[in-house]
């Protein structure tokens, strides 16, 4: 009798749930399409588009071509760092040292410039230096088997410290106008920034590698279950090592970009940027535990965060609000899927019990 009463109670609860959710979750046929609509990266892309539309209509000066150009310039360093970070986080690791690598390559550029090297030779050397710094991370993590969180906290301090050793608190600012002008300028006379093309090429390249090649599949496999991946013949250690080298090289590239964009090589360039990069990667739907994620979601998250900052600034909302928004988004990005899973799980158990 009590069982009957209980099942009746559960039934009424299920009905209540059914009414609360307009999309019928109970049908097996619909659940696939519902899942596509509710995946995190689809949601974040939709939110980003919606935000851009609303902001363009509501915020003065937001929807102009000129402002779009500024947004692209602002998001370039975050986007370039987030590309490699997405791959690393997908393998279940993390790289907190990227912003310090940017600072160190920028400081090294300053020293080389003061030493009389030509900028044409400085730029490839800076990217190479970034790759070497990434290889040091990779060696400690995959070679010695140390946790990536601890290693990259160490190199976060070490690389930033070495940047200060190189340049102290001075700045090198006499970069040739031809190069700094190109970084800030647009294609021809249009408002499309020069940096947009290489950015898009790199983003497409990383997207293809992650989603359409065996390397990408092994990245997911290594993140989902490193032991199973190793048994499946994937050289997990070597894969991670080269990902750290890639991440370092991208940070070196960002170092070049940052120096030329602000026409200033300083040891504190990009200080604290690693937190923003991690925030967009997680906001883009990449699981911090590895094995899950997609590049389009991350790209949308980068655009969302930078455009949001830009719109708030144009709307004269204080920059303090930005810190709160970034932090909250970071937590919500992980909290929301967890809550969704919990609700879905609860629904499923209810359904199974009533059936």
């Amino acid at each position, binding site marked *: 009798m009590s069982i009957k009463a209980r099942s009746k109670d559960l039934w009424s609860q299920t009905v209540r749930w059914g009414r609360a959710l307009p999309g019928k979750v109970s049908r097996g046929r619909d659940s696939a399409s519902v899942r596509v609509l509710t995946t995190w990266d689809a949601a974040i892309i939709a939110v980003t588009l919606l935000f851009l539309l609303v902001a363009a209509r509501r915020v003065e000066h937001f929807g102009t071509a000129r402002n779009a150009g500024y947004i692209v310039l602002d998001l370039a360093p975050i986007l370039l760092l987030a590309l490699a970070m997405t791959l690393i986080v997908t393998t279940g690791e*993390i790289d907190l040292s990227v912003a310090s690598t940017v600072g160190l390559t920028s400081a090294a550029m300053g020293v080389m410039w003061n030493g009389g090297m030509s900028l044409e030779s400085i730029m490839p050397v800076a990217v190479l230096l970034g790759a070497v710094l990434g290889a040091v991370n990779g060696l400690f993590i995959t070679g010695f088997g140390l946790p990536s969180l601890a290693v990259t906290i160490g190199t976060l301090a070490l690389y930033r410290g070495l940047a200060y050793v190189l340049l102290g608190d001075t700045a090198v600012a006499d970069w040739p106008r031809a190069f700094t002008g190109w970084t800030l300028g647009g294609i021809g006379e249009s408002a499309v920034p020069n940096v947009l093309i290489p950015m898009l090429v790199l983003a497409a390249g990383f997207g293809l590698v992650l989603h359409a090649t065996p390397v990408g599949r092994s990245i997911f496999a290594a993140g989902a279950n490193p032991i199973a991946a190793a048994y499946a013949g994937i050289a997990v250690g070597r894969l991670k090592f080269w990902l750290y080298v890639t991440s370092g090289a991208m940070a070196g590239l960002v170092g070049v970009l940052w120096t030329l964009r602000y026409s200033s090589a300083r040891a504190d360039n990009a200080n604290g940027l690693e937190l923003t990069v991690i925030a967009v990667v997680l906001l883009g739907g990449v699981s911090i535990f590895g094995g899950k994620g997609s590049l389009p979601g991350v790209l949308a998250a980068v655009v969302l965060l930078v455009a949001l900052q830009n719109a708030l600034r144009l709307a004269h909302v204080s920059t303090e609000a930005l810190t709160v928004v970034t932090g909250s988004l970071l937590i919500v990005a992980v909290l929301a899927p967890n809550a969704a899973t919990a609700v879905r799980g609860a629904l499923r158990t209810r359904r199974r019990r009533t059936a």
Partner: protein
Amino acid sequence: MSALATTPAAKTGSTLLDLVLRFRALGLIIALTVLVGVTTAMNPRFLSGQSVRDLLFAAAITVLLACGMTVVVLTRGIDLSVGSVLGLSAYLTGSVLAETGMATAAAMLVGLAVGAACGALNGAIIHFGRVPPLVATLGTLYVLRGVIYFVAGGSRINASDLPRGFLDFGNGSLLGVPYLFLVAVAVLAVVGVFLGRYRAGRDLYAIGSNPEAAGLAGIPTGRRLLTAYVLSGSLAGLGGVLYAARYGTVDASAGYGMELNVVAAVVVGGVAIFGGSGTALGAALGALLLTVINNALPVLRIDQFWQQAIIGALILAAIALDRLVSLRAARALRQKGSNVD
């Protein structure tokens, strides 16, 4: 048979090395002694009363925060929000003091309460929301710093606004040891005893070693995690009170970037970043070592800009050393096992 022949030789050959490697506190004390000895040889005034007092002033807050961080790191967690919690607590306590002129002890309670609230927020997000500690506390690092900016705006609290007694507490000392350092040592003793002797403290080690096993063994992991984060937050809050007392001026940037130093101290102090091993004493010695390095650099005529690079190198060295120790321990266990066979 061959195992029997080789193991005793290997053991007797490396007892001293094993001792130093196994007990991080010993290694840290040796490192501290060598560093202080060399620096004093270069400049005898390094061990003068005033210089030692400056050192202890500088170390007090890091030691305090390192105790809280140890508790969290033991559970496989991390608390990156300590710098922001410290700043928030320093500013709020400072404003309450400036308004009411309350007693120092009451101010400490206010700071502890602010910190405990922030810690409870962290703990709730991590435990109930199932958000990894790194992400959750990175988020609250941002959010709480934003809250400080909202509360403080462009204004700041000056020493002239604070009660005389509070500032005396911040700058005074007993027999050459600053009050602030005494507070830190008292907290260290309490946390050390809690971790070493109390059931709830030992449970934290169990959770850090193997969360599933700890849960199956009947340990209330959720409640223990919440306790750990509330404790870490409270100590960061207390650190804020000490900060306000020491410096007198508090603005919105108080404690900015402090989390890195605290994590560095804990890792250098031999607390494994993946939980389950380490002591509060080790972490406190790590904090002391970092402070001594900091203060010794100008005496040794090394550019101050080397400071951060040295901290980074120390972190890498410390975790590499930990790895070495655990490899040796695993090998020793295996050899013992083969003896039994």
